[in-house]
């Protein structure tokens, strides 16, 4: 009786995993296949599930002829710098909100939320004006600053949840032992909030990696453009170059997947300290 029950359960579980993988991997597979097809084959009706003529021309074009390697490097720089800035600002801010009592806390949280509410597309022109006034066009750090500004409210929001989940008794224990607030934050809270930090970091990095509109608006030169510029240039006046776009898309995802596999470990690492259980 027991054996049969386990059998059915396992099959159902396997089915769910299979369906999920199909829904997720399907489009990814299609992206890869389209990148490997020649432009003419892409338009064939009915579509071919596997390229009739496998070709690497889209990928080689992307890697050799365009400035994609340069764009790639730029994206890495933007992502890393934004992450550092965001982590710094947000750890401090979330700690203050979670741990201190001060006037205007509610107002601050509402303020944070309001900055998120206007769609980016509506801010493009005013941003262009303010960038112009501050002489920030074509400036790497200006881009990092605006990315950070957009990500910080979200990150505070996210991290706050995790900080709140850490019992205050731990703080108090440490303070009694002589730690300053800052030390509590750095040595105790942050390590315990690792899953939250990871989630927030991933969110920030993915955002910067995929960001297209701001980057294209505020940079005029190739030396500053991110990966997405490679995708944008596949949308031409004569239509979309599907092969090229999908090839660049594949190239863009690979580092993200690698990063995520690496982060996975920390995400899953729960509250390690035994003092917190129960």
């Amino acid at each position, binding site marked *: 009786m027991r054996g049969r029950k386990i059998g059915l359960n396992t099959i159902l579980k396997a089915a769910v995993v299979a369906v999920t993988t199909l829904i997720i991997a399907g489009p990814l597979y299609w992206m890869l296949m389209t990148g490997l097809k020649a432009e003419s084959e892409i338009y064939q009706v009915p579509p071919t599930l596997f390229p009739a003529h496998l070709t690497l021309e889209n990928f080689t074009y992307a890697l050799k002829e365009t400035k994609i390697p340069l764009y790639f490097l730029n994206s890495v720089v933007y992502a890393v710098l934004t992450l550092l800035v965001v982590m710094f600002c947000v750890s401090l801010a979330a700690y203050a909100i979670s741990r201190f009592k001060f006037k205007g806390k509610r107002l601050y949280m509402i303020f944070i*939320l309001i900055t998120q509410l206007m769609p980016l597309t509506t801010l493009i022109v005013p941003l262009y004006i303010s960038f112009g006034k501050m002489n920030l066009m074509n400036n790497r750090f200006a881009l990092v600053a605006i990315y950070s500004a957009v990500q910080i409210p979200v990150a505070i929001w996210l991290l706050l949840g995790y900080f709140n989940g850490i019992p205050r008794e731990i703080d108090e224990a440490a303070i009694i032992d002589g730690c300053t607030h800052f030390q509590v934050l750095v040595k105790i809270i942050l390590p315990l909030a690792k899953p939250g930090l990871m989630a927030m970091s991933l969110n920030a990095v993915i955002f910067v990696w995929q960001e297209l509109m701001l980057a294209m608006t505020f940079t005029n030169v190739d030396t500053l453009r991110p990966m997405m510029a490679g995708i944008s240039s596949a949308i031409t006046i004569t239509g979309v170059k599907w092969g090229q776009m999908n090839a660049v898309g594949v190239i863009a995802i690979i580092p993200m997947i690698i990063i995520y596999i690496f982060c996975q470990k920390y995400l899953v690492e729960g509250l390690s300290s035994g003092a917190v259980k129960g």
Partner: protein
Amino acid sequence: MSKKTRRALAPYLYLVPATLIIIVMLGFPIIYNIGVSTFKWTLMSSEKVFTGFDNYIAILTDEKFIKIVTTTLVWTLLGVVLQMLIGIGMALFVDKLNVGKKFVRVSMLIPWIIPGVVTALMWKWMLQADLGIINYLLMHLGITEKNVLFMSDPNIALFTLVMVNTWKATPFWFLMITAGLQSKPVDQMEAATMDGARYHHVVRYVILPHLSPVIASTGILTAIWTLNYFDLIWATTKGGPMDATSTLPVYTYRLAFEFNDFGRAAAMAVISLVIISVACIPYMKKMFDNLKYEGVL
């Protein structure tokens, strides 16, 4: 500075870096938008004329406005609910999985990682009538007889896009809930099971309450993101066919860059902001209540 003053100032100091960046970069644009919405500002003239609430009246009396708002609400509500249900469901499922946990976790995140523009165009391509792989497979497997007009039929276009958006956005819910599950109260769960509770009882009475803060905060965030999401709709249907997929951000963009009316677009942005704020109020209340209970507020 006395120790007491320093202690009182400390929280504010901690908030300075974040607040500074936000105000410097976003302060001017947001206030400018609010201000300029009361002016007539189009590309057609280089002057900005103060017209008070004219822009707002024009928008609110536009016959399309009601449709746009309802479309936006459907898009947002349906999207968030789907993301939430599937995200929580999958997170719980993976949590209980013994084999292949890592594999599913990695796979679940992939849709989120694919750049938005690529996702949009890729799905547009896949959902086409003749050239699209999905219709081909559906007909090949005998599930449908004719091509399904996923994006060209005004009646289903919006739902198609909601599904695509859900595909892309669910990983975030999955991530949040999974991280939240890492601190699930295992003792309570064991106790409940020993008292005879079945799994779905444990979920309902132990796990979900534990996840409640995460669900609330993720809910607000994803609601705002979904409502404001522009790239997907613009890259696929541009708000069509027949305005079936015109949401607030899409229409705002058209006002600015197609009709060249920046004043009106700014007014639209402010209206968006008001609508979202109002919609968020109940959630904010709940969140603040939660936080009060936890002693944070």
